[in-house]
């Protein structure tokens, strides 16, 4: 078994055993980290593989959260129905936004995604009747796995749901990037002009991956709502998108599994530091700046480079 496979197997085993090994708080923290990890993973699809920097990705996380919250509160459906609703809403909104945004490239694309995301944020903030406005929607319940099925209210059960979603999503993303479609994405990232000169139009590819990424982000948001019990506009704000970008870079851009780790590290640093000092933001910022300068490949990228050299 190659070292990469061994590592993957060990990680899966650790994830499976966690509920029996970890304390109550550690398990809920792990669940939280996995949800953010899924968000970062979805961002890596467009950022790492297609080279599109989006400052509006948080909007899809938010859309997923709101859809999920509304389905669970008003229709009391099993959680997977809410997950589907969240993923679909995110994808549906990403379609027109992506269609417009992919007409632009580079920094203009980033600004455009920022503008659209802020638009959605403003709508969420003001449409009080639907979204609860600035207060958000609280009291989102964890319902059941399927109609008449086991309840997901226990931390164990919900953890397994989240872990399963993340592992499956990671698997799906790997399939996507290794397919011919994925190769085309990488070609676009490397040199879009050459891609065009070969007679192929990059725009449909970019649009499709944009929507796929939004769907996974929506899934993460849809898991967030019942886990934390609420949805609010803050999860759609551009600062959260920026944090997502930081997670991807910290973990390793273009490695899929890296961003998941990056998200965990990012949140853990904040958690640990903020218990010791009110000024944890300086240390987080400093760590990040140092990583950007000295370790651009992130954790996974640097690890792979070191292993290749060894």
């Amino acid at each position: 078994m190659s070292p990469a496979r061994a590592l993957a197997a060990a990680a899966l085993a650790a994830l499976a055993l966690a509920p029996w090994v970890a304390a109550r708080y550690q398990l809920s923290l792990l669940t939280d980290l996995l949800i953010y990890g899924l968000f970062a993973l979805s961002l890596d699809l467009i950022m790492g593989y297609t080279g599109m920097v989006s400052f509006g990705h948080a909007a899809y996380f938010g859309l997923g959260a709101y859809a999920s919250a509304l389905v669970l509160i008003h229709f009391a459906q099993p959680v997977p129905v809410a997950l589907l609703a969240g993923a679909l809403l995110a994808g549906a909104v990403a379609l027109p936004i992506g269609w417009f945004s992919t007409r632009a490239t580079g920094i203009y694309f980033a600004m455009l995604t920022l503008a659209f995301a802020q638009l959605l944020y403003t709508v969420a903030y003001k449409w009080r009747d639907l979204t609860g406005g600035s207060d958000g929607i609280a009291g989102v319940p964890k319902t059941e796995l399927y109609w008449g099925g086991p309840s997901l209210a226990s931390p164990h059960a919900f953890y397994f749901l989240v872990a399963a979603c993340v592992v499956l999503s990671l698997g799906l993303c790997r399939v996507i990037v290794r397919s011919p479609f994925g190769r085309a994405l990488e070609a676009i990232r490397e040199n879009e002009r050459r891609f065009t000169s070969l007679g192929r139009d990059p725009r449909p590819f970019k649009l499709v991956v944009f929507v796929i990424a939004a769907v996974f982000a929506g899934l993460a948001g849809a898991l967030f709502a019942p886990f934390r019990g609420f949805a609010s506009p803050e999860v759609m704000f551009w600062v959260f998108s920026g944090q997502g970008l930081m997670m991807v870079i910290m973990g390793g851009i273009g490695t899929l599994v890296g961003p998941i780790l990056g998200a965990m590290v990012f949140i853990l640093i904040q958690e640990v530091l903020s218990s010791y000092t009110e000024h944890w933001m300086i240390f987080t910022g400093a760590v990040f700046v140092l990583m950007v300068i000295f370790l651009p490949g992130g954790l996974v990228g640097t690890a792979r480079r070191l292993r290749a050299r060894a």
Partner: protein
Amino acid sequence: MRRRDFLTMAAVGGLGAGLGVPAFLRRAAAATPIKIGMPAALSGGYAQYGIQAKRAAELFAKDITAKGGVLGRPVEFLYEDTAGDPATAVRKAQKLVEKDGVKFLTGIALSSEALAVSAKCPEWKVIFMSTINGAGSLTAKAWNRYFFRVNTSGPMGARAISLYLAEGPMKRFFALGSDYAWGRDSVASFTTQITAAKKEIVGTDYPPVGTKDFASYIAKIRQSRADGVYLALPGQDATIYLKQAHQFGLNQEVKPIMEILELENMKAVGDAMVGAIGSSRYPFTVDTPRNRDFVKRFHALHGLYPDMFDGETYEGLEWLAQVIQKAGTDDVEKVIDTWEDSSYEGLEGPFFMRKCDHQAVQLGFAVEAVKDPKYPHPVPKILATYPGEKVTPKCRSEDFS
């Protein structure tokens, strides 16, 4: 534990066990502290509110330690920083509950954070005591048994100032509320009450949160020929409005009426806001012996005068301590039962905890910002005091009539 202590304890324990009294266990129980978790906004745009809660807790911790703790046990405060973000707030609150085992949460600054955390309390079985959050829905639509509100709510604040204005000479009012939940609700509440008092609202506007330039609104307000402008703007926005209105000379023509008149504004704006009136949840100038003593001790510890949430948080903590003492235990269900329908003599006056929605019925204050040479910044002078029954809405609702 040192060897000598262990031997002593073993001996005592052995003796105690022999006497049928497990002294070892009793001493261990006496040592475990009562833990109060404070997931407060200590950084970010709302830090000034979380910091007030922390300041009050620091003074209270000092005071309660001097008294020997509660039920013979020390009181331990665990502070966490939520940065004013609801997702972080829930995460920190969950950490305090699951990892640190706290049974009481307080010090939460934002209403959105409070709503999210409050909704989780029945699942965690911990008490959430609000000393800052004003959202009416916390004791109405979003109420649950584990939530207690010690502070004056937003509707109550609006009520106090509306009662004062109803008796006053001003007739025409413009309402300016920031475009989010609290701003809109306050304006709605004010509009209902002031029109019931046969006064007129001549204009309403909802500037976005974070507005930096109120010049256009100032122009509109001036054009409307209002006597007073009712402001439901969060801290920094209110500071900016007051400064700019002063620069346009508007404050002399149209009196600023603030739903929350706080020291934070007075320190930042200074003399430019002298003459502004409004509602205060806790004016530190309340002249009771208890309060004068509190202000003195607060100033000695922190070097500044207590603002609204400093006072309300201290009162909440003092009351909670008294309730735990009376209940004889920190068991959450028993504390809830003891707290309901109980009374407390606060710094500013008497409090009564309503059983139906856990809102503390308390005095309402209408105040004015005045210059006083004793202080480095303007201070609130009390214009009118209203008894609790007059300013508290009906049970589990935000309405008064």
